[in-house]
């Protein structure tokens, strides 16, 4: 009524865009630092280790770090979604273990002996359904997610112990083991770098172009240009280094593919928008007609499904599952990856890519310290400290934001 829909091509008066420095100041003020602090930390860590740890700075070790972080990173993508709606999922590690057990049991040549893709599908399905189950209790009954998923932590750990009566199951399917141990040939690796670059540049320029058609000027053309140049360079450098070893590991493809898909879902779809809305102000989302319970259940389903995928990669890395599946520091690492990467524990703020950056930092730190000969105990303590620093940082930033807002 007040304003007729703008007809395409209508020249809309260009409003002066806020200059980049102003935007940066706004982002600092509102705690939208994103992943910059971690990227800086990661570069520092790499610099220190490359000077101190022998063989750290080698293609083989680079490949190692990537295959080590793949499982954690995939799980952490789901964790970021859960954190975005202001909830927590403490069950992800053992849910991933359940998926590993399902895959291992179903592929057994002496048992079910199902085709590899059926095993994988059923394992991810099982993990997703666990997410739906836990999410429904959170969303429909209103039990705090902390408690529901803490119960899940115990339940799914029990399920793993119960499911592995024989203690350990070896995975004999080469296809399944390939989820962690397959490497693309040099040519395919270059092709993947090219594919990612084209996708990224196309996506960025495409949306900028769509805006200009509606009379919306490109915001920060310099930043856009930088991104469009830097990302392909990074892609080709990474592949170049990996090609010096065995090529691109399948786990990297999973990490990058999932990153692209989930970033698209989070940023470009109504579902993603509603995820951020629920995390920012659930009551406002409800009043806007958003089905908040549905969003919450779907988010827990994503967390479950990604845990399942991560669990398969972890099982494939060991080419077996045992009673430790999903145990150890996996839970802490997965949640820390999301939080360290810059996703707020208070909901509504964060990006999917934070999981990748956070997982990279954690893996690099433990890899480097391991090479330097530190005990596992020390590595745990350092990882814990990094998590503490990240969460403290988040809290302080949030306090600053509250003080500056309204």
């Amino acid at each position: 009524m007040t304003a007729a829909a703008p007809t395409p091509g209508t020249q809309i008066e260009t409003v002066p865009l806020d200059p980049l420095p102003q935007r940066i100041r706004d982002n600092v003020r509102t705690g939208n630092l994103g992943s910059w602090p971690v990227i800086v930390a990661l570069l520092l860590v790499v610099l220190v280790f490359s000077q101190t740890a022998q063989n750290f700075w080698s293609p083989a070790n680079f490949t190692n770090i990537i295959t080590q972080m793949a499982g954690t990173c995939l799980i952490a993508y789901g964790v970021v979604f859960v954190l975005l709606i202001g909830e927590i999922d403490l069950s992800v590690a053992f849910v991933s273990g359940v998926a590993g057990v399902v895959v291992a049991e179903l592929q057994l040549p002496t048992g079910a002996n199902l085709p590899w893709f059926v095993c994988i599908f059923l394992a991810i399905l099982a993990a997703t359904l666990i997410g739906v189950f836990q999410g429904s209790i959170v969303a429909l009954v209103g039990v705090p997610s902390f408690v529901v998923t803490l119960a899940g932590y115990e339940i799914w750990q029990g399920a793993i112990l119960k499911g592995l009566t024989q203690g350990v199951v070896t995975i004999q399917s080469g296809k399944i083991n390939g989820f962690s141990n397959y490497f693309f040939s040099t040519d395919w690796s270059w092709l993947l770098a090219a594919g990612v670059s084209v996708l990224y540049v196309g996506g960025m320029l495409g949306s900028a172009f769509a805006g200009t058609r509606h009379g919306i000027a490109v915001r920060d053309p310099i930043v856009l240009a930088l991104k469009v140049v830097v990302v392909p360079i990074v892609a080709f450098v990474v592949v170049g280094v990996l090609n010096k070893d065995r090529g691109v590991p399948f786990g990297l493809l999973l990490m990058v593919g999932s990153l692209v898909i989930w970033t698209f879902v989070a940023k470009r779809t109504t579902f993603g928008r509603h995820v951020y809305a629920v995390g920012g102000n659930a009551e406002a989302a409800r009043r806007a007609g958003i089905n908040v319970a549905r969003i919450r259940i779907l988010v827990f389903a994503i967390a479950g499904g990604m845990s399942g995928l991560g669990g398969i990669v972890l099982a494939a890395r060991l080419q077996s599952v045992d009673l430790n599946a999903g145990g150890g520091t996996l839970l802490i690492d997965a949640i820390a990856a999301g939080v360290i990467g810059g996703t707020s524990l208070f909901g509504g703020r964060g990006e999917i890519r934070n999981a990748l950056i956070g997982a990279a930092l954690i893996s690099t730190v433990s890899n480097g310290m391991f090479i330097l000969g530190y005990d596992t105990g020390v590595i745990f303590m350092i990882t814990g400290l990094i998590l503490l620093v990240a969460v403290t940082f988040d809290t302080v930033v949030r306090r600053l934001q509250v003080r500056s807002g309204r």
Partner: protein
Amino acid sequence: MTDTPLLELRNVSKSFGSVQALTDVDLEVRAGEVMALVGDNGAGKSTLIKCVAGIHPMDDGEMFFDGQRVHISSPKDAAKLGIEVVYQDLALCDNLDVVQNMYLGREARNGFQILREPPMEAKTRETLKTLRVTTIRSIRQPVATLSGGQRQSVAVARAVLWNSRLVILDEPTAALGVAQTEQVLALVNRLAEQGLGVVLISHNLHDIFETATRIAVLRLGRNAGLFERAKVTQEKIVHAITAGQPTKVSGIAATTDGAPV
């Protein structure tokens, strides 16, 4: 007037546990009028409009829209009828930017649920311009960085962005400066001129007398009078707010010549 009212509420009751927030409240809004809803703190004004908006289900009572009996059980139902509400406790997501808030829950999308940002951005810019909201630096900045008045402007703009038929504003000027208040009041008048029904809740009688066609008074969760603005004084309204007797009537009260019905 003989035409059917746009919105008609009959005998609406609502309690929160042991707190009886509303008892047998009637309210009528015609298209093209500004119905002011006044009452002391806790009189039940916000509760009444939240019942209309589908936020709280009403315990008892009937609601008619365009003369049709309707049941509203969720905010979506209300939006479908063309009822838009600006809430007193602003319903904005701080982490989202202005455009994202304006379109929250009703994003422009294609068949695959993929967002279409450019039209949303363009229309937001245009709507803010027609409302003469000029102080917002960028419509892509998160709402958290806006001042109280700017946030209020966004909330009002969101309500008029849609082809609404009834706009309900719960204390829309409470956080606003003089100039912004004038603008919102002018906007309220413009909405009514365009044939929409408007419900304006305010504690500021000056604002009310500047815009309202009729004034409904609530006291302690009951109707305490219905007045024609042109035929009533501020003193009478103040008296009804603070000491008005419940006007227990069945059905909808007819407009009278200034006396409580």
